[in-house]
């Protein structure tokens, strides 16, 4: 570092700001990816089928795909309403 940098080092470098912001947004967009395109539609269909039998909330069905080595696992969680 040259001695002039001493006077300049106060400001936060814009490149490190860019890197931080990119790391956050890229990580978020990657988790939404890989996800098959049909998942939201599948989730909606399953919700409708369950509703033929039980009254459940809109967010009662949670669905996600996890990758374990070569195989993919479709995980389905249905929250039933508490019985009184």
């Amino acid at each position, binding site marked *: 570092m*040259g001695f*002039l940098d001493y006077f300049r080092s106060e400001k936060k*470098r814009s*490149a490190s700001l860019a890197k931080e912001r*990119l790391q956050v*947004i*890229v990580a978020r967009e990657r988790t939404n*990816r*890989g996800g098959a395109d049909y998942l939201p539609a599948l989730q909606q269909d399953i919700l409708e089928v369950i509703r033929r039998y039980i009254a459940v909330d809109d967010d009662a069905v949670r669905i996600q795909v996890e990758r374990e080595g070569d195989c993919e696992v479709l995980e389905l969680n249905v929250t039933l309403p508490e019985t009184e």
Partner: protein
Amino acid sequence: MARIVVVTSGKGGVGKTTTSAAFGAGLARAGYRTVVVDFDVGLRNLDLIMGCERRVVYDFVNVINGEANLNQALIRDKRVEGLEILPASQTRDKDALTFEGVESVLNALAETHDYVVCDSPAGIERGAHLAMYFADDALVVTNPEVSSVRDSDRVLGLLSSKTRRAEQGEEPVKEHLVVTRYAASRVGKGEMLSMEDICEILSIDLLGVVPESTAVLNASNAGVPVIMEEKTDAGQAYDDLVARYLGEEREHRFLTEKKGLFGRLFKG
């Protein structure tokens, strides 16, 4: 059987066509029969960058529609032996490129060439999808700038899911990072993402860094692939890049700024 290489980026204006022209010319200069295919239907520009715009008679879509055969549409480069280009059509019909049409043209090109370089349009629509679909390798062109890096990451996601290799469960498309418009002096001042930052965020292998250079505009003004301008920094950077792609080990140049006497005095 040729290797199919897509030059892609997501974002526009980052240097895909400049890279396609330089890369194609470099491969041909190394002795490989190479064809560069312009996939940017409606916005043909590869012909201009390669200086053969006045020799375009038939185009990619004419071949797909059976209005011309491949040999009528291919333009042989006058400077480099073994280099050809297949120009895009200027039609406004977005569906002019059909999946089957592209597949059959690429198959035919693959039989008579060693490398087929596909110059992708910007975006992630049909043209970009078809340009990457049949690829074996991808050059992902990225500027050291937030929107370009983000779009490149998006494109990497598509390369690993929406390509023939991905769909058929074959070995994935080999991805290479090409950083262009790199200004080492600004990186030094902390004003620009460094090559290391970009590699870390995208986590793919770096093939080459092309410095921001007046040579690129000069070469495009003249219709000469910048790799032919052997005395320029950008030309040398592309020459290194092609050599690395072909398996040669070459150190990265142009990663640090050239300091004059004045700069050295003040920066130590």
